[in-house]
């Protein structure tokens, strides 16, 4: 499902202008990462996708729906949003009921809900924790419950706000798997992240925000190669990109294969 944002401006009630005219289109089945310094407007921007915030000026279209003309409850059938802090999202007594809450609310029938829950729990490796209270789990697993409770809603668009914060390498790999699977299913995935290595290894399009505006928007290699511009929004290029640059590689590299490829050609 296509997302079209035109000249989006937003001011908080205290007068702080958080978004200063954002225009962008995200096609169905695109996976996009949003990066930028603390306070750049990343979370403010994605909260416009499901109507949690309404534009001060401009327009946000989710498919053919204008977010200002539909309720948050209605938009929830198209856009799933996983909060940065799982504790702001979880409230049920068991993982199973938590993950069933979304699809049930969207009006899926009993059998459908059951199938969606089963699928979401399998994907997030939570199948053995169905009967557990989410708050008896570590924060690592609560994060996975938050992911599962959105995935089970089977929305065309899924938004993750900082999915890897405080996660170890094993769980980051798990989250990368979830995103890869959603890509296979044709979902639009939008992820806010400060983890630039994770971003570089899992996303092909990157948008860098700065002070409520789009600073860069393009293919991952193009965006991540712009070290000086990224620095203005407090983002460092990924480790391997910086290494390639220091070694005077004639192209921007992000992934291990790319790096080794250039290195071996360089030598021969």
């Amino acid at each position, binding site marked *: 499902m296509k997302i079209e944002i035109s000249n989006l401006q937003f001011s908080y009630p205290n007068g702080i202008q958080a978004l200063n005219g954002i225009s962008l289109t995200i096609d169905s089945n695109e996976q996009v990462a949003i990066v930028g*310094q*603390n306070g750049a407007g990343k979370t403010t921007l994605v909260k416009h996708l499901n109507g949690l915030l309404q534009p001060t000026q401009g327009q946000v279209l989710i498919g053919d729906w204008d977010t200002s003309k539909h309720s948050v409850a209605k938009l929830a059938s198209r856009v799933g949003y996983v909060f940065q802090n799982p504790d702001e999202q979880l409230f049920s007594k068991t993982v199973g009921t938590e993950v069933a809450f979304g699809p049930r609310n969207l009006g899926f029938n009993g059998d459908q809900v059951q199938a969606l829950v089963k699928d979401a729990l399998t994907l997030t490796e939570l199948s053995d924790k169905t009967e557990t209270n989410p708050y008896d789990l570590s*924060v*690592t697993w609560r994060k996975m419950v938050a992911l599962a409770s959105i995935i089970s809603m089977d929305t065309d668009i899924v938004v993750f706000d900082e999915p890897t914060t405080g996660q*170890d390498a094993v769980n980051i790999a798990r989250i990368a798997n979830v995103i890869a699977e959603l890509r296979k299913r044709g979902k639009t995935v939008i992820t806010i992240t400060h983890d630039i290595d994770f971003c570089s290894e899992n996303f092909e399009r990157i948008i860098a925000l700065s002070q409520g505006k789009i600073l860069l928007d393009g293919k991952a290699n193009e965006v991540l190669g712009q070290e000086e511009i990224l620095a203005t929004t407090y*983002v460092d290029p990924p480790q391997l990109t910086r290494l390639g640059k220091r*070694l005077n590689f004639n192209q921007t590299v992000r992934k291990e294969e790319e790096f*080794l490829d250039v290195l071996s050609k360089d030598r021969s």
Partner: protein
Amino acid sequence: MAIVNLQNVAYKYPLTDSPALQNITFQVNEGEFVAIIGPNGAGKSTLCYTLAGFVPHFFKGELAGHVEVAGIESHNSSLSEWVLNVGLAFQNPFNQISGAKYTVFEELAFGLENIGIPREEMKTRVEDAMKLTGISDLAERSPYSLSGGQQQRVALTSILVMQPKVLVLDEPTSQMDPIGTREVFGVIRRMAERGMTVILVEHKVEWIAQFADRVIALKDGQILLDGTPSEVLTSPLLQENGFGISRYTSVARIAKEMGLWKKDKLPVTLDEAVEGFSLAKHR
């Protein structure tokens, strides 16, 4: 001289059967900057709580072995002695902000008020600490109106103003942007150079490698490795046990198998990687 001394420490939270920590023995010298790494659930936060006296004084449970930090011994002390000597910044800054103050400035003075620091000194300390961590412009904001990364800077600053002998930090940069993270690591490094002892839990291996003096790897409540950043962060044991490693180390490990990395030692920092790969290039 050792300012932290743990001997055969084991700990169980109340109402649990399995220990959160066991066989923990290590010393930390004054002014040393030690990073603690480990997968989720390894016991990193529990170790922080133990070093700051929250275990056992706040969490109760069963603590065995010898824990001594800045001359205070866990079994014969109260939490009020700990706060004068050891500062702990929580993993989630939201849990640390008092909720009793309207501005960041007042929030930062809260700890000082509680230990009876004179007014003028309070102001100087708060202003100096805000400058150090780059939050002077937030002084009049409400602590609750800040972004996650800004709240983390406030949480760290609220500990620095207390001028503890030992600084214990539990993932203090988890919500910060990348360059903000690097800046905060720089601040922590400077505190260590001024003689403050720093114990830091972190997943961000690149900055640990560059800034810490020593790394302790925890797994299942026990110490798996303890050594220099280079020794610990290049150990093959890390990947086998679910630890994150830097891309410099992992790419050099593969390059070594391909004959493209000529040194014995694998790199942990960008500079080491540049040096080693340049060697391969210009042969």
